[in-house]
């Protein structure tokens, strides 16, 4: 029996020590998340953007100072550049030269973003296939209804064909973020129209910027078109008399009076309590002196 117990203990200790050893040997590498995106702005400039992050304590944290390699083409890839990620874990490459855009057999541009990894972080790779698209936005007034007409054409086998079935989202920039004002679903002619809301305030002259976007489109990536015109309501902001706001220089008089009266009342009573304490102290001192005098006599 004793032998059995000893053997069991030996087995358990060997097993557990092995487990501890194997655990200490394995120092798991960080598995990064790689997000690879294509952007084309209003001026027809295109960029490739890679965001490298990792997860720690339920938080997504950036991997900064990491070398990201950008490639174009499929099969034999052409190295475009190596960019170091910034403090947000972002590396951006501006696509400029014709050699940056190498189309495959289907007329798509294959791009690759690669992080080689290091001693503590695993490598990561992401690929994109982008088709060039031309997004147009026309702003017209039809029967006094302000209308946004969007159209898109893509290149297929050297020809320009309309984009159908895709959605273009429309925004208006506001103080803190973009306000969505509608979605345009492109028909077979590659166009669609959306009525512009009449009640949106613009700047002092009524200027307002309208943005049309393909967002995270599987074929076109992120493509943007924007235009500014006087479709907004002029917002000449003037402070009405007696207006109250947190940023006004002084508080309303009634508030100052109320607070002053309240605080004086409260602190007045505190003063009474403090004076009472002083009176107790003085009284005690007086009594002590009287006692001393009586003792001397």
């Amino acid at each position, binding site marked *: 029996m004793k032998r059995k117990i000893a053997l069991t203990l030996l087995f358990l200790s060997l097993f557990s020590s092995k487990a501890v050893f194997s655990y200490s040997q394995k120092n798991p590498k960080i598995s990064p998340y790689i997000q690879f995106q294509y952007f084309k702005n209003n001026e027809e400039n295109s960029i490739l953007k890679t965001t490298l992050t990792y997860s720690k304590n*339920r938080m997504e944290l950036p991997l900064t100072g990491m070398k990201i390699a950008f490639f174009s083409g499929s099969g034999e890839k052409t190295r475009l550049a190596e960019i170091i990620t910034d403090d947000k874990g972002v590396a951006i490459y501006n696509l400029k030269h014709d050699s940056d855009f190498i189309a495959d057999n289907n007329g798509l541009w294959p791009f690759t973003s690669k992080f080689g990894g290091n001693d503590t972080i695993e490598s990561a790779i992401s690929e994109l296939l982008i088709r060039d698209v031309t997004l147009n936005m026309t702003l017209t007034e039809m029967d006094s209804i302000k209308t946004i007409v969007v159209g898109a054409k893509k290149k297929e086998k050297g020809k320009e064909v309309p984009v159908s079935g895709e959605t273009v989202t429309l925004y208006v920039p506001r103080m803190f*973020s973009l306000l969505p004002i509608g979605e345009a679903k492109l028909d077979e002619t590659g166009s669609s129209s959306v009525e512009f809301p009449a009640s949106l305030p613009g700047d002092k002259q009524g200027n307002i910027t309208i943005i049309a976007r393909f967002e995270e489109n599987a074929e076109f990536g992120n493509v943007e078109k924007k235009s500014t015109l006087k479709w907004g309501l002029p917002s000449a902001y003037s402070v009405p008399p007696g207006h*109250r706001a947190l940023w006004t220089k002084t508080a309303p008089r009634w508030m100052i009076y109320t*607070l002053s009266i309240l605080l004086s009342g*409260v602190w007045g009573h505190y003063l009474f309590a403090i004076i*009472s*304490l002083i009176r*107790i*102290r003085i*009284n005690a001192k007086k009594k002590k002196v009287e006692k001393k005098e009586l003792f001397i006599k």
Partner: protein
Amino acid sequence: MFGNQEIMLTEKKLLQDLTPEIETTGIRWYITFLLFFLIFCVGIYALIQQIEKGHIVTGMRDNVVWGLYIVNFIFFMGLSYAGALISGVLHLFHTGWRKPVIRLAELLTVISLVIGPFFIFFCIGRLDRLPFLVIYPRIQSPITWDVIAISTDLVGCFLFLYLALIEDFAILRDYSDLHVKPWKKKAYKILSLGFTGTEKEKKILSNARNVMAAMIIAIAIIVYSVLAWIFGVTLQPGWHSTIFGPYFVIAAVFSGTGLLIILMWIYRKVYHLEEYITKRHFVNVGVLLTIIAAFYGYFTFSDYLTKWYGSIKMDSMLIDKLFHDYYALFIFANYIGILLPCIIIAFPRFRTIRNITIAAVIAVTALWVNRYIIVIPTLETPFLPIQDTRPDWIRYSPTWIEWSLTLAGISVYGMLFMLVSKIAPIISISEMKEEDKIEIMK
């Protein structure tokens, strides 16, 4: 003459019963204190992490900018105002049974008021800008109202507690059989201000106490209403309510009464005060808890009913969230937490000291949860569809840092109660002496 001798004997008994805790400290006290201190140290480590890395280590993000810290702040401030209300009312109306519990209510007020504001400091991202509140105060900001209100209340409550302690300090100073370290004796001498108990001194003290009791009742109501208005004056769904002021005050008294019962149970058990804190005290405070629970339940129902019936889009979204994502917490805070204490205390056969204490624990926990579901779901229901806001940024869940600091706050709360009980008697000797004197005279 015989009567005087009896009074002296009563005072001696009171001193014999209530001073041992001031004179000696047992091993259990040290172990409990050490445990609290260790929790406090973990909290300090969490705070260092938060200061070093920023608020990213908390669960708070762009939408939910108020998390566990603000929940704790409101909760502790509520406890404090409740303590002030209870002690003020009990003192002012000379409630007969108040004497063994009034000191606890006074301590509850001051200690909660000391702990509460620290949670605001934890919540502020730029602590270095804190002096700006004083340097550039803006009277029109509810935050400024709150700073003024809390500091005013803190001074008032300290004064009220000190006025209540003077007589006891004088008794302890004059008690020749008190075996404490010389510094403690010296402290009693200084703190008692030379009070000798003459009629004149007693009158001055009594007047000051009456004035301060009335004052702290008024301040407690105003100050907690100001805290409620910080929420009420914003247009956020769930907060923009005219009844938030009285609702907060009632909720505060509810939690404070609950905690008072818990403290009575702890001190009765630990310091063997069965002779002084009796079942009668538990039942009386318990009945008070039930009445307040009924009012609190009524306010809760009114608040949610009007929001639900009004069907304003954002209010509907909030109520929908409360009944789905926060279903369990909502039911616990607003059904179980109100009804169960009422049922336990309302039926005489359930009214044992243990059951009343359990009811109080449920009430206090439920009220903390109520604070949580007032603060968090509203912030998770933003008015504007903010872009690039990930779901885990909208949905708040506290991190270990926030929980550690919460527990650290509770541990400091416990430590302060333990330390105070080593300096001042936990039951007012002077008040008890007066009670016995009256009974003997009768």
